[in-house]
């Protein structure tokens, strides 16, 4: 009976192939969300594959913790030996797509002197923001006054989008996390190879 059920299910379910079957199953790039950067370019999240990424979430009008997140990302890159853009990219996605439009992201990058050769500030639609946060394991919540509360996390993605390391230490660099970044960069972005 079970076999018949299975057969029936296969019959029922045979059809479209998976879109990004080439990506590992635990790759966050399985998530089909578009990101728009500070220059107004929109591309699927998955186009960031190929280069290891330091990823976090923030929002532009946040004055306390978010600048510290951005600074910690900078400091982590420095501590890891300032790898060139093609070996390590930095991505911060906004919780606040309503206020963080392209112009706001561009201004934020300029104010904080972020070098856009390796830095990307990005936004996406509200529902995609929630989904992206879920994939990254970041919690956030909008307050009645428009501000956000959020957990602070820095993630390290390998070239294929696997989460290799994660830290919640903000305000200074996390030595273990820096080691993970160095190792990944040294391996050319592969977290599974030798």
């Amino acid at each position, binding site marked *: *009976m*079970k076999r*018949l*059920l299975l057969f*029936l*299910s296969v*019959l*029922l*379910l*045979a*059809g*479209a192939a*998976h*879109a990004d079957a080439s*990506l*590992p*199953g*635990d*790759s*966050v790039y*399985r*998530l089909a969300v578009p990101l728009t950067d500070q220059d107004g370019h929109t591309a699927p999240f998955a186009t960031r594959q190929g280069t290891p990424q330091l990823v976090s979430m923030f929002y532009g009008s*946040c*004055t*306390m*913790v978010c600048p*510290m997140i951005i600074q910690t990302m900078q400091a982590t890159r420095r501590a890891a030996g300032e790898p060139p853009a093609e070996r390590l990219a930095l991505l911060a996605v906004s919780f606040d797509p309503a206020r963080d439009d392209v112009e706001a992201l561009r201004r934020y990058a300029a104010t904080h002197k972020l070098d856009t050769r390796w830095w990307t500030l990005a936004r996406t639609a509200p*529902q995609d923001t*929630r*989904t992206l*946060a*879920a*994939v990254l*394991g*970041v*919690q*956030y*919540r*909008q*307050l*009645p*006054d428009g*501000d*956000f*509360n*959020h*957990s*602070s996390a820095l993630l390290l993605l390998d070239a294929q989008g696997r989460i290799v390391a994660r830290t*919640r*230490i*903000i*305000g*200074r660099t996390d030595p273990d996390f820096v080691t993970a970044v160095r190792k990944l960069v040294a391996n050319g972005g592969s977290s599974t190879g030798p």
Partner: protein
Amino acid sequence: MCRRLLLVLLGLLLAGPTLAADYAPLSGGRFASVLPADGKAAPASLKPFHLRTEPVTNAEFLAFVRRHPEWRRDRVPPVFADGRYLSQWAGPDALPRQPVTRVSWFAAQAYCESEHARLPTWYEWEYAAAADATRADARSDPTWRERVLAWYARPSNEALPTIGGAPDLHGVRDLNGLVWEWVDDFNALMVSSDSREQDGADKLGFCGAGALGMEQKENYATLMRVAMLSSLEATDTTTNLGFRCARSD
């Protein structure tokens, strides 16, 4: 049991698209949530919305998976669901009219999109679940609380009942007493109410002081649900966790 499921499967094969799910209108408004909007005492403010009258069932989810094979058990990538996703379907005991469980947040969200809907927010869910047969907010009635708590006490290894509980004032069924249900903002519930009160490295990890201040501490029944939801990862699936969908008006 198995034959019954087979019959349903065959029925699905032959019947094509299933009937549209029922959604009931809820008026919303100001609502005293256990999670104050500002972390202190502000009531939640809800726009009118529609809520599915029943949780999504095994049969409905099967029809969805059939149309969207990327959500099949053997195809879903681990980034979207853990290894126990829909594992109850491998056994003989899954009934068509039981609420579907062992679905991840991602899978629930994808299902709701297929109904041109979304997952309800916590406030929408809590507001709807506050009702009983005659009142929109029955939470102060000890009977309401006892009913919810009695359900929590039910052993989780018992077979899940099927849908079809008594409708509440809004015409919505089985909010309390059948399964836990995903909400859209499950990953927003316990985040501190004020990330601007920074006073030390330990608190930075949560961008503020540990946990959200919760109102109505006597409302233990609802707080338990908040605690459960906030402990979940979006890929988690459990035996007693299902979902229903909502639509903005």
